[in-house]
C-alpha cells in the first residue's frame, strides 16, 4: 500500500494543481471577454460553455448523475483505504540501547519461522504467515498429527525465545499427516 501511495499522491497533487490553474484561466478569460454573443463564446482551454448547456438540461435524477456520484464515492473510498492501510508494518524488537530501534518485516519473521520448521526431520512442507500479533503455520509431515503439532509448536516457541521481539506473537499451527510410503 505504501508503494501505491507513493505513486498516487503526487498524481493527485498534480491533478489538483492543474484544476486550480484551469479554473483561474477560465474565470479570468470569461471576465475579460464578456461581450461575445452566447453562441460564439467558448472557453480558453476547456469548452465549459458547451458543458454548461449540457448540464443545464439535467436534473439531479437524470441518467448519468447517480452513476457518476457512485463512481466518485467508490474512488473516494479506495483513496481512504489506501491512505489508512499505508501504515508501516514493521515488527519491533528490543534494541541493546534506548537510542537504537530495531525492526524487521513480517516477511522476514515468516521466513525465519519457515526455515526453522522445515529444518525438522518429520516435516515435509510448511507454509507460514506472520504479523506482529500472530504466526500461523500450516505444516505437512510424516509423524501422526498430535506429535507433529507438538514438535512444530516447540520449534516455533524455541525460535521466539531467541528473538528479542517487543510483543510475542501467538502461534497457531495446523498440521496434516502425509500418507503413503516415505
Amino acid at each position, binding site marked *: 500500500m505504501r508503494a501505491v501511495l*507513493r505513486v*498516487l*499522491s*503526487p498524481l*493527485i*497533487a*498534480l*491533478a*489538483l*494543481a492543474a*484544476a*486550480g*490553474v*484551469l*479554473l*483561474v484561466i477560465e*474565470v479570468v478569460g470569461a*471576465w475579460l471577454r464578456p461581450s461575445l454573443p452566447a453562441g460564439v463564446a467558448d472557453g480558453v482551454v476547456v469548452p465549459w460553455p458547451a458543458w*454548461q448547456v449540457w*448540464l*443545464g438540461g*439535467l*436534473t*439531479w*435524477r437524470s441518467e448519468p*448523475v*447517480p452513476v*457518476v*456520484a*457512485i463512481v*466518485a*464515492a*467508490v*474512488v*473516494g*473510498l*479506495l*483513496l*481512504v483505504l*489506501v*491512505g*489508512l492501510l*499505508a501504515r*508501516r508494518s*514493521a515488527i519491533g524488537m528490543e*534494541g*541493546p*540501547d*534506548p*537510542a*537504537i*530501534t*530495531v*525492526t*524487521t*518485516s513480517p516477511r522476514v519473521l515468516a*521466513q*525465519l519461522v519457515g*526455515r526453522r520448521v522445515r529444518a525438522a526431520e518429520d516435516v515435509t512442507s510448511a507454509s507460514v504467515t506472520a504479523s506482529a500479533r500472530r504466526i500461523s503455520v500450516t505444516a505437512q509431515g510424516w509423524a501422526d498429527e498430535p506429535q507433529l503439532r507438538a514438535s512444530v509448536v516447540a520449534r516455533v516457541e524455541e525460535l521466539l525465545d531467541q*528473538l528479542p521481539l517487543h510483543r510475542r506473537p501467538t502461534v497457531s499451527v495446523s498440521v496434516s499427516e502425509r500418507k503413503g510410503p516415505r
Partner: protein
Amino acid sequence: MTTPTTTPTTTARSNTTGLRRRARAAVARSAAGDRSLVVLVGGLLLVAGTLVALLSYGVFGTGRSARPLLDPIILDTLRAQPLPFRLVAIVGGLLLAVLGVVWAARSVRPESRPDLHLTGVPDTRIVIDSTAAADAIGRQAAGLAGVGRARARLVGPEHAPALRVTLWLADDADVGAVLAALDEQVLAGARESLELGELPVAVRLELDAVTPPPRVA
C-alpha cells in the same frame, strides 16, 4: 548540560525519550503528510458522492431530486453579483494550484542525506559527506559475525542526524548477539569518531538470500 531548573535525571530521561522518538522516526521515510492528504481528498469524494447519490435516488424527497442540476436560484445570484464570485473563484483556483504544486514537490523530493559538521578543531570547518560516513559504518557492520551484507545511510535534518542501518543476517545468526556487537563495535566507534554525542539508530533486519545446497553432489 543541566540547567538549574532541571535535575540531571529529568534531563537524561527527556533526552532518552527524544532519542527513542528520533530513532523510531529513522526507521523509514515518513508518509504521514501524503497519507493525511490522500485520506482527506478521498473522504471528500466519498461524502460528496454518497450525498449526491442519495439526493439523486430521492432519499431527500422526490421534489428535490427533480430540480435542475444547475439551480436557477444559484445561477441568478451568480449573474446578479459576478464580481465577488469571480474573485472567490480566482483565489480558490490559485490556492488549489499552490497546494497541489507544494504537495507534489514534497512527495517526490528525495529523502535528505545530512552531511556531518565536525566542530572539534578550532578555526577549521570539517564536513564529512553523508555518503562517506554512512558507507564507512555500513562496511564495518558488514564485517560483524552473522551479518551477510549491511547498508547504512544518514537521515533526518542536518542539526539532528540519525542513522538507518539495514542488516542482512546469515542463516545461523543470533539476533541478540549481532545487535550487541553492532552497538559495541560499530556504533560506539562511529559516535566517537564523528563527534556525535547522541546518534539515534534505526536497525532493519533482513535475511540474506540462502543458496540452496546442490541436490547432486
